[in-house]
């Protein structure tokens, strides 16, 4: 038997995933990126660090998250659907995996402060959470529009001891929060780590965040075996920046499972974008004719990102994973479906993956198939919005 290289591999020193990835940042940030790269590489080969990472996720983060067989949904769809329950992780989504890893690394690097960008607030709350636990200073950049739309999450971060800075530049949303965090990082790299929220940004972020999130896939692969199901036919995850998808894909990329990423139709960087450079990485991006980055549009704030992690661009390019867009309407229906048939209210983000399964069961997903759904987060944060949407309709 010849040993083939893993599909989701170590992107090496230059952080390339095929044509994508790399490090496109101001010179001032290069040393910080290199320091981070070295620190992560060192930590990730250090059993003690890995053990602490797993320990914190176990005793603080609620891992392992279970896999739930969705009996009633499966029966009605004619395919066997298993859900990896990231909604049960602390703070309500997979985001905790990444921030626990990055804050531990921050401390290991001798830094005392983290900054982060956030869109609707999920990653900001997660970062503030992990920072509070370690007593790190924390500042979160959030588009001014988002601070208004998600005022409660602003308060949540403040409760957790973080400072929230409204970003007034550009479209005053997530994209600009990333820009602003990068700008700020330039001024404080000495004592500050930039805790990026997804598998995006300059090398080593896409790789590092994928590694931290890969705990999802490794757990799931073991659990599917323990359940006696083995390798699922299809693994499905929603894709904003792509961290939860990368995390679960990492457990199955070298298996026979088909990998499907579901983007918001209004933020479909793979099917609707072109290669480009943004936020320190080369990837697929929504752009205007003249190369300006366009705003993504989706009911789901967590998928409102005009790009996608570079490794996903690569997985799409080599045909290992495919990426589909999902419109808002079937997403709301999928949220209702999962809630009423299984007693799990998914995040709007995660409902994208549910919607794809509901639509394709018996079509692209042959009846009788086994489907592993990454339920990336819980819907509590979205309930008010869904109510307003449904009310607006009736």
């Amino acid at each position, binding site marked *: 038997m010849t040993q083939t290289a893993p599909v989701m591999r170590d992107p090496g020193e*230059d952080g390339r995933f095929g044509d994508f990835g*790399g*490090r*496109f*940042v*101001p*010179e*001032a*940030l*290069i*040393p*910080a990126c290199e320091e981070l790269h070295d620190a992560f590489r060192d930590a990730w080969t250090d059993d003690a660090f890995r053990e602490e990472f797993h320990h914190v996720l176990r005793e603080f983060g609620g891992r392992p998250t279970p896999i739930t067989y969705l009996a009633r949904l499966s029966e009605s769809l004619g395919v066997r659907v298993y859900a990896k329950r990231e909604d049960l992780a602390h703070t309500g989504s997979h985001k905790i995996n990444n921030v626990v890893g990055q804050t531990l690394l921050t401390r290991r690097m001798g830094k005392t402060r983290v900054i982060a960008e956030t869109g609707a607030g999920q990653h900001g709350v997660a970062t503030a959470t992990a920072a509070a636990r370690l007593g790190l200073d924390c500042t979160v950049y959030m588009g001014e529009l988002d601070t208004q739309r998600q005022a409660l999450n602003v308060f949540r971060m403040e409760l957790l001891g973080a400072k929230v800075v409204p970003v007034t*530049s*550009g479209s005053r949303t997530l*994209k*600009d929060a990333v*820009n602003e965090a*990068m*700008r700020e990082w*330039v*001024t*404080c*790299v000495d004592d500050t780590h930039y805790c990026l929220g997804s598998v995006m940004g300059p090398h080593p972020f896409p790789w590092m965040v994928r590694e931290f999130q890969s705990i999802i896939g490794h757990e799931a692969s073991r659990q599917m075996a323990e359940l006696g199901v083995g390798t699922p036919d299809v693994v499905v995850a929603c894709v904003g920046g792509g961290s939860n998808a990368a995390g679960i894909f990492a457990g199955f990329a070298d298996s026979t499972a088909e990998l499907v990423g579901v983007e918001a139709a209004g933020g479909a960087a793979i099917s609707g974008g*072109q*290669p*480009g*450079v*943004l*936020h*320190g990485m*080369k990837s697929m*991006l929504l*752009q205007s*004719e*003249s*190369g*300006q*980055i366009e705003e993504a549009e989706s009911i789901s704030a967590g998928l409102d990102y005009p790009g996608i992690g570079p490794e996903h661009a690569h997985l799409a390019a080599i045909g290992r994973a495919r990426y589909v867009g999902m419109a808002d309407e079937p997403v709301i229906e999928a949220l209702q479906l999962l809630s009423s048939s299984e007693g799990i209210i998914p995040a709007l983000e995660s409902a994208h993956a549910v919607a794809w399964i509901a639509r394709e069961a018996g079509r692209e997903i042959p009846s009788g198939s086994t489907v592993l759904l990454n339920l990336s987060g819980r819907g509590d944060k979205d309930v008010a919005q869904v109510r307003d949407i449904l009310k607006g309709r009736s």
Partner: protein
Amino acid sequence: MNSLERHLRERRDAGQSSFVPYLMAGMVPDWRDHLEALVAAGAAAVEVGVPFSDPILDGVVIQRAALASLEAGTTPEGVFAELARRPLGVPVIVMTYFNIFHHLGMERSASLLHDAGVSGVIIPDLTLEEAGPWREAVTGRDIDTVLLVAPSSPEARVEKIARAAQGFVYAASRMAVTGQAEDTGDAGAVVDRVRRHSDLPVFVGIGISTPEQARHAYSIADGAIVGSALVDRVLRGMSALETEAFARDFVL
């Protein structure tokens, strides 16, 4: 050696300090007049920004200029066409983010820049490691790709950058994005480090906003780049004539 570098070396060797002002193309309708005023005031070269939606090395002032320019419908090709229309008489250095060129296509970008008479580019998010394909594209087109050195750049890296640098070395005076600062920050140390590894002209930029600061830059380096201070005033309605007067104070 490309013409930009030759020009700047000649100035340096002649003991002339270089004032290099920055304006964002399209930020005001008469941006071209402002450029000419800067040349008239004695700019050694001009930096022309091509607006990008996500300028991660720019502070609020230049962000605002980019937004104004984009809202006015500025496109990279439009800027290049305008620059091609009539030479300014001094070297033109285009500053923008890499996606603009990437999207246009590197070959095509290089050719358009060349046709527009542009002799240098600054791409703040294109560092040495990623610059290979771009530098290949501009090779033979008389366009220098200017590289930055930051206060955080370690010795070995300064050496690498210095070796690969073209035109001049952009010495960032501080760990900051573009803007108006109180002083010239760490410029002295950065310039010294660059000088240890390169005999290219070294210009100080990032935060330089007063004639005094520029003069201090001239005393430690070969030139000063002034962006936000100028952009801010133009955005607030300074006329081209006033721009010329304002700029004169920066010229030794």
